[in-house]
């Protein structure tokens, strides 16, 4: 069971180390982790994706996180109405012949080409993880030379917001 968990933390030195150390020590496998400052000075937000089997383990994970002195708030937002995004850079083999084909893939994903060289180009794509996986799948046949994903960062949506359609959430 993949869970997306966010933790609002005080930005003290070593806080990331405390939190990741805690998770590995207690046997949780972190799939991805992102961290950055928030609108409040001195407060950061960490977004984890973890793979956890049982509900009891998820509860244990959030409790252990919450117990940390530097952690102000912990939320398991997996089952909430949320916006979750990830950024991915892909360096893909591209000959002059295949460039336009690749362009044809990049456009509907609203991805961007950041750099073009003789035999490759770099694509930047942002979106939900399944969107990113979809574009990776499509680019793989051309030959991926290098790939780097940031991991998910996420929010719950404002209450008033209406659910958007699947198509839009995949692409936008």
């Amino acid at each position, binding site marked *: 069971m993949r869970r997306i968990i966010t933790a609002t*933390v*005080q930005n003290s*030195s*070593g806080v990331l*180390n*405390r939190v990741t*150390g*805690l998770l590995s*020590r207690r046997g949780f496998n972190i799939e991805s982790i992102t961290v950055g400052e928030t609108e409040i000075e001195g407060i950061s937000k960490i977004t984890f994706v973890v793979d956890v089997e049982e509900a*009891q383990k998820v*509860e*244990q994970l959030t*409790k*252990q996180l*919450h*117990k*940390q*002195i*530097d*952690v*102000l708030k912990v939320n398991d937002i997996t089952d909430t109405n949320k916006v979750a995004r990830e950024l991915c850079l892909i360096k893909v083999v591209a000959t002059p012949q295949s460039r336009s084909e690749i362009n044809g893939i990049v456009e509907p994903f609203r991805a961007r080409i950041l750099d073009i060289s003789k035999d490759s180009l770099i694509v930047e794509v942002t979106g939900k993880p399944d969107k990113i996986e979809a574009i990776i799948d499509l680019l793989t046949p051309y030959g991926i030379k290098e790939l780097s994903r940031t991991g998910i960062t996420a929010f719950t949506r404002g209450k008033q917001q209406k659910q958007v359609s699947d198509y839009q959430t995949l692409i936008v």
Partner: protein
Amino acid sequence: MKTELAIKEAQLNSRIEDDFITGADVLIEALVNQDVDTVFGYPGGAVLPIYDALHKSDASFNHILCRHEQGLIHAAEGYARTTGKAGVVIATSGPGATNLITGITDAMMDSLPVVCFTGQVSSAVIGTDAFQEADVIGLTTPITKYNYQVSDIKDLPRIVREAFHIATTGRPGPVVVDIPKNIAQEVVTETFDTDFHLPGYQPTVNPNPLQIKRVMNALKTAKKPVILAGAGVQFAQGSEELKEFAEKHKVPVTTTLLGLGTFPGTHEQSLGMAGMHGSYAANMAIYESDFLINIGARFDDRLTGAIKHFAPEAKVAHIDIDPAEIGKNIETHIPVVGDAKEALKRMLNSPVECDDHSEWYQAVMENKADSSFWYERSDDLISPQWLIEQIYEETNGEAIVTTDVGQHQMWTAQFYKLDQPNRFVTSGGLGTMGFGLPAALGAQLGDRDATVVAIVGDGGFQMTMQEMQTLKHYNLSVKVVIVNNEALGMVRQWQEEFYEERYSESLLDQNPDFVKLAEAFGAEAFQVKSENKVRETLKSAFEHDGPALIDARIVKLDLVFPMVAPGKGNHEMIGVKPCGE
């Protein structure tokens, strides 16, 4: 608070005008502000400024120089366990700090409030593998409740306040404050605000009334209720309430190893300790119960045995100040987050009357009567269990008892039936050999008038025996009883039971002469080999004003029973009292 701060500030200001003060002075002042009366410390390069400040100051606390940093930290633990106050430690950087690691881990496992100040190399050379540099923050992050490295002298007073607050509140635990040498040396020219700021740390003390109601409703209809009390009851000072509550509803009470004394061991409702070497009656009561109320225990695996057989029929209520303990090991039906005393008070105030469960009570008590802890007394040689009973009688059951780890620890837990809380000092979660002697030293410093007995093994004593010198140095009247089986007895027992008597490296036929050794440390020393000499030897030792040691030669091959073998359920105890005895 504000005025107190203002006064302190004025005092500090006047001192700044008189002569300059340093970071080290600020630290000592901060310790005085915390009403520290005892500091366990050992000097070294990185803490020289702190020791110099200590030398010059007229600080109101005693400094105790143990003979090894492991001694410092275990002494601080013993002090903390018996007084409820934070044990304070100062050690130097590098090896000084790393020598504390075992004890800090021990304090973490057993939730003991300890604040350790470690010296660190100067800020400018941190990260360069400087002389006696160790990454104390990295090393201690997993084994502390919290840790700090001071990077600005202005933060020091606040950090000290926070450290003591964190260590002693909520679920207590160790806090490390790492102080680079330059910070201790820095000259201070102004005063700083010392209010603390911990928005992420707000332990829940008062339990949710709805949850209390649920506990009481479940108790009302329970046919087979039992209470399991842990160290959380001691930390909350809730023993009185526990007794009142158990008596009011006539519920049998068992405790964990660390919970011994939270409920009077000689009380008719007491089943003694549960778990691997606990009483048959306690384990069966838990096994058969339909409602288990855990108050301040963490369902450690030595207590639960195989989880699938633990309280299989019971609805479980768990009262704990640490929410992360609830549901961690055992599925819990009624979680109650809060302080044990506060919860018990509210439970006592509940108008709920229990339905009749006297049949159950009767059955549990019959079990207790039929299967008490037992031993075969040897004719002349000293049976260890009998020895513990003699110590019990000699001290009227009122001593502070510390133990090391091994067979003697379990015999003590079984046969020294403590009636008071905060008097049993043992290493539970970590099972740290070498704990007993320094812990006794710390306990004695916490209460100079108490009778303190360290019951240790011949193996574990040799891990920290240099602290005999510390006892002598401060003329502490700790009585050390070596339960000498010329073996790493607990290891030998497992080899006998589970490894076909292959005693691999567990026999200590090359022990030192403990009597000569103790005498070399300036202690009064005795050896006793036969039962008929035990009482008079104990008397002589207890009468002596100053440290004394007894090398008690016991039946070498004795075993701790009853026992739940590893991987077995608590209902599958072996070595239960033979019928008809």
